[in-house]
């Protein structure tokens, strides 16, 4: 079976259009980041979070009024997977588990005839939150640098730069999408947690994986077709690797969709970010990473002429 036979698509001819699309997506993301912002989870904000499982379904509004009475008017309340499971979160800090106990007490007095169990409880002190945040930034930063260095070492320097720009592009678009899509439907919970950071790093890995395969082919073709122009060469390489790109990305996409649908509440934000990431990652290998190399070369050529 073949999805694509031999193709001769002139990918790079359309690159200006795609620059525009990328810029539009990134702008939309940044606008959303500025207006709506990101939804930081308890890992980074600190505070107390409980997931309460009731025996029967409850109204969110009821839980909210219970929390208002208990003195947690600022608490965030939403469903966690099903209508019986309610997540209650406050950024208030207290000694030991006092906040958790107060929340529990508030729920117990309001829902006397609907017994509940607490299936998850997290309490994060303010210092830990700040530290986790710093570690997350460091992790993303170091992996970007390490990957850039590796690619620059294995290929030419400008390829490393291309890969790095592509990675920034993917991360930016995905963060933007996470900001836009968070809370659009009640079951889509896209808060920035440790799992989400893991998703971003995986995205970085997968995206560069795709880029490297294309660069590898360019490197190989450069040795064979020494006199071929760079654009033609890259186009040829892109066409040759196209069917692999589609199949691999398609497989990963399929796996991620399964994870998103069946993987449970904990994995849903993770797989959402990766679904977006695998799409931009595949696309950016062509129109950002490879295109950067082309633009760089053309600028150099223009300079030489001038």
């Amino acid at each position, binding site marked *: 079976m073949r999805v694509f036979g031999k193709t001769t698509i002139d990918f790079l001819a359309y690159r200006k259009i795609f620059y525009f699309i990328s810029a539009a997506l990134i702008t939309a993301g940044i606008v959303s980041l500025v207006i709506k912002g990101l939804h930081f989870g308890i890992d980074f904000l600190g505070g107390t979070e409980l997931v309460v499982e009731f025996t029967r379904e409850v109204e969110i509004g009821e839980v909210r009024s219970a929390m208002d009475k208990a003195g947690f008017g600022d608490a965030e309340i939403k469903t966690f997977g099903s209508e019986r499971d309610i997540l209650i979160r406050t950024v208030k800090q207290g000694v030991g588990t006092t906040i*958790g106990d107060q929340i529990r007490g508030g729920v117990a007095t309001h829902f006397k005839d609907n017994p509940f169990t607490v299936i998850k409880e997290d309490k994060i002190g303010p210092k*830990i939150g700040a530290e986790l945040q710093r570690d997350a930034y460091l992790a993303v930063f170091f992996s970007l640098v390490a990957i850039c260095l*590796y690619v620059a070492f294995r290929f030419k320097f400008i390829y490393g730069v291309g890969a790095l720009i592509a990675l920034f592009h993917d991360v930016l678009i995905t963060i933007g999408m996470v900001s836009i899509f968070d809370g659009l439907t009640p079951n889509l919970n896209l808060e920035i947690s440790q799992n989400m950071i893991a998703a971003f790093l995986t995205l*970085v890995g997968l995206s560069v*994986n795709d880029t490297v395969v294309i660069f590898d082919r360019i490197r*190989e073709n450069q040795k064979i077709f020494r006199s071929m122009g760079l654009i033609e060469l890259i186009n040829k390489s892109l066409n040759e690797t196209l069917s692999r790109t589609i199949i691999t990305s398609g*497989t990963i996409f*399929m796996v991620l969709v399964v994870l998103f649908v*069946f993987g449970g509440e904990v994995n849903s934000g993770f797989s959402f970010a990766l679904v977006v990431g695998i799409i931009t990652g595949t696309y950016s290998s062509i129109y950002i990473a490879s295109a950067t190399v082309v633009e760089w070369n053309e600028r150099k050529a223009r300079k030489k002429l001038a």
Partner: protein
Amino acid sequence: MRKYRFRIIVVAASVLLSIWFLLPTYQDYELSSQKKALTGADSIQFVEQHEKEIREFRKKRIKLGLDLQGGMRVVLEVNVVSLIEKLAKNKDDAFAAIIKEVRQQVARSDESPVVLFRSECERRGVRLSRYYLNLRDTDDDVFRFLEDEAKKAVDRGMQIVRNRVDQYGVSEPSIQKLGGTRIIVELPGVSNEREVQDLVGKTALLEFRLLKEPEVAARVMEGIDKYLAAKDSTNTPKDTSDITPEVEKTPEQFAKEHPFFAIAGFTQQGVASVVEENKDKVRRLLDRPDIQRLIPSDMEFLWSAKGQLGQDGKKYFTLYPAKKTAELEGGVITNARATIDPNYNQPIVTMEMNTEGSREWSRITGANINKRIAIVLDQSVFSAPVVRSKITGGHSQIEGMENLEEGKLLEIVLKAGALPAPVDIIEQRSVGPSLGEDSIRKGLLSAGLATLLTILFMVIYYHTGGVVADFAVVFCMLFILGVLAYFGGTLTLPGIAGIILTLAIAVDANVLIYERIREEQETGKTLRAAIDEGYSKAFSAILDSNVTTFITGLILFQFGSGPVQGFALTLIIGVAASMFSAIYITRIFFDIMTDKKQSLVNFG
């Protein structure tokens, strides 16, 4: 076949090794599902019968993260500022102001509190020796002293928590030091936060308790033994003409007639010695209300905190018959130190008490010469020295430690009474067992489904090539789990996600190779040549792309925590395993097939 022999052996060995590593995980699963089917007394009996196997398999199985099996994780931080405050002498208003300032700085800064304290003192032109050690000491001396005390406080905090967790009987607890001042406690299966409050919130209680006289202890234990034997014989009719002499009794007979002494050996010193595997059994026995009635109301059995190796290489715990009320509490201790006695070259621990304590101590020791006084921290006995003489002046010396290590432990314990380590809970996470089970189900469902879809797709798209790649995927999964079991790794929900992703990466390697082979075939090469070219040309792309994934995995492992580390771990293992199976193993299949039956090989 001969020329493939070596490669086949390598693969077979890897597969067998993986299965071998995974066997305990499977056996553990079998045992626990058998146990689940039983209830109440049956299940306790089952546990007793299989105690050893359960322990054995538990140790070697793949551990489940707290997010999968439910449990609690607590991060404690020793409050070094409080410690500095407590240690100070001649506190004045200036000191209070410094402490207040440092406390605010600590909340914002990553710098060690001791360093912050020193610089704050220097900023205000206050010499550290004004509050610590002697006036002649330099700032550096005091600084080193405070650093040392802070370090010891963490050790003390860890010892206190470990001691309580051990008593609690949590299976597979994990207690680790993190950085300079933190302690991570992970308790699988515990989800009640009130229990944790008990575990870490309470101040440590150090007591000196008299042991009961050996005769009294012997009488009580005999009573228990007889009661149990009598109760046993009502169930199973016993041969009344018991003429076999004691010495010739088989262990079975002895166990029948002396059910208690068979598992708790009575020694001359008036204590009982219990082998590790029977500890829980004896503990449960002593907790029974009918047995409790046989123990005098002023007496209580306490366990030794640590086991000792017996001559048979097994670990033995000591059961001490102690008085229920303490003679003295540890708050009176002002200092303790483990050293080597220069005269006898033996490890000793010296202990100082305050005036009030010294007075009491001399009365207690004077009245109980040649009796044993147990040093008890939170209901565990750390040492039970014999009183040699009346101790006046509050200066005591404890001997009889096996080595300096044991002495150091006792020093930590004694100081826990003198200077309880002030700890704060800075992070606490708990996952209920039902959520954990739900997560496992969803994780396995999605992993299974993803695998199935991928396998189907590969066969449809690449025909025999796909079948071979699918074999590689299965091997890859086996290797990941095997390596995880070997390193005692922990499987978390993100970890399962990592395995699923690895699956995709493993498939990608084969896609790269097969696409290359197809290309080569199109240029008119023979099958064999196309396979050769395909593998060698695809290799550099596979290597480069895997290395980058590997790098992100390593960084994630370094900076992530808990479940996220689980993800990084499976990703790292997965990258290595997938390269081995997708390149090395599949090649053997194709080489053999092209040799034997070329018509079989088909890349779709």
